[in-house]
């Protein structure tokens, strides 16, 4: 039976990554615990800008929900990682093709210079959580290699 495709970007898509993370405790335990409130922001989609708030604690992703622009502040993220739909799509396709991000598509590679992705937040020390726990976040995004993704 073929896996059902999950559309990117959507809450279900991030939930699929979360489910994969949560069922691989040993793998994530090796990387160390994660304590982050993260927003993944996809700009310039057909439906405008989309934001997904994720709560990580321990070795799990506990919560995924879509946020309107106005709800982001209340969600109180440590950091927001933001990029346009085309870049997200390229990254997700790259991960699918290689089983994990190739050297040109890792989160840090895409974010470092502030383009095509950008990591930002109100408080630099909380933004630094992104770097402090990056190994886990990269593994989390790389989980998409196992998700059958369709693009709107």
């Amino acid at each position, binding site marked *: 039976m073929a896996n059902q495709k999950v559309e990117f970007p959507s809450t279900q898509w991030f939930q699929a990554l979360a489910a994969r993370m949560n069922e691989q405790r040993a793998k994530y335990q090796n990387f*160390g615990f994660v304590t982050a409130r993260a927003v993944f922001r996809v700009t310039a989609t057909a439906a405008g800008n989309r934001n997904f708030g994720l709560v990580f604690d*321990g070795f799990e992703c506990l919560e995924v929900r879509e946020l309107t622009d106005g709800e982001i502040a209340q969600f109180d993220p440590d950091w927001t990682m933001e990029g346009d739909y085309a870049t997200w799509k390229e990254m997700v396709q790259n991960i699918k093709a290689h089983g994990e991000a190739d050297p040109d598509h890792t989160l*840090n590679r895409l974010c470092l210079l502030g383009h095509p992705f950008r990591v930002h937040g109100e408080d*630099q*020390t909380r933004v630094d959580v992104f770097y*402090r*726990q*990056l190994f886990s976040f*990269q593994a989390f995004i790389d989980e998409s290699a196992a998700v059958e993704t369709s693009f709107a």
Partner: protein
Amino acid sequence: MSMAIDKKQSVERLKALPQVQRWREGNYEPGAWFTSKPAEEGGIWGSWGHRFQPNRRGVSLVELNRADRHPIPTEGLGLLADREAGAEPDAPRYDYPLREKYQVWSYNVESLYEEAMSRQWSATRDIPWDKLAPLPEDQERALCQFVSFLHTVEFVPGDTLPFYMARVDPSFSEVRLFMSSQCADEARHMEVFGKRMYANGGGPGMEPGAEALLLFDPRKSVLPQEIAKTVSNVNPTWDFLAYSYFVQMIGEAVVLDFFRFGEFLGRNPCDKEMFRRIMQDEARHVSFGTMRIKYYLDNAPRREREEASEMLHFLASACEASGTGFGLLLQPSAIEPFALLAAGSLGNLDKGWDVVREFWATAVEEYINRCERAGLPRRGRCMLPEEAPF
């Protein structure tokens, strides 16, 4: 050399100890440790009756301290013991130079320590060394030089952290624990860079003098010598505070940027993952330094706080102007290989340098943001050019 006492005499002396005599007479009644009341009730036992729930991550210092009804003291006790332990009347007291909480504490020290323990890794086992792939010779040479430079940088905290750690009153054990974890991190970085240099057909490059920039050697400064000398002898009362700015906030922030850049440049999973692991460690060190300066500036007595703030601004101006910390980004033996790696080949060097320029701007912006967070606003005062000076 002969001993002034023989074994027989030694045994006799041990037997003459009052407690040994007591036990020899069959009197096994436990002493004060068993009968004394807790300090709260006037005894010399430490404290009693602690309850708390482990969270989903285990037994964390964060929850342990939160649940403790005894606050962390503002002044250290000078005892080599847990801060809530009792002390026999004749217990030796020690004069630790850093004995006030505000002098050593950091807002996030408990959680950072827990994170450090949770995210330890092995340079031998956790790096996918088998995925290293041969690089073009100019690229491997550039990477080896870059890594040789970083290897040198790692000696700095390893040489200096234990000096301060030993001066922190043990009442603030969380601070000592965090500093130990940082020592372990730095040692592992030295190890992994040392291994990487030899791992892919290359070898260690030139000693780049990076440590002199971090340790503020006036000979390496772009400031006039008179000013450079003043900076290297800032008021020693604030030695540890200055250190946190110098090494943990500006030096390691730049080093963190280097590690992020290393990940950016990596062409195979081995180099990528190595830098990704290292970056995490370094970001903790920077976070500790930043929030420690903030704690100091929030909690020192008013007069001292004002003077410390003035000193930090002076130090920041001097470091920015002299190229301490950011001088690492002007070090030819680090930046040239960096540009060559970003270029991908010698024919493409212009492109590589453009990336380095962009990187400079990002690094300066993040540094200014961290200063802001530490309560040391440098926006508008920062002596560093926002754009790369090349």
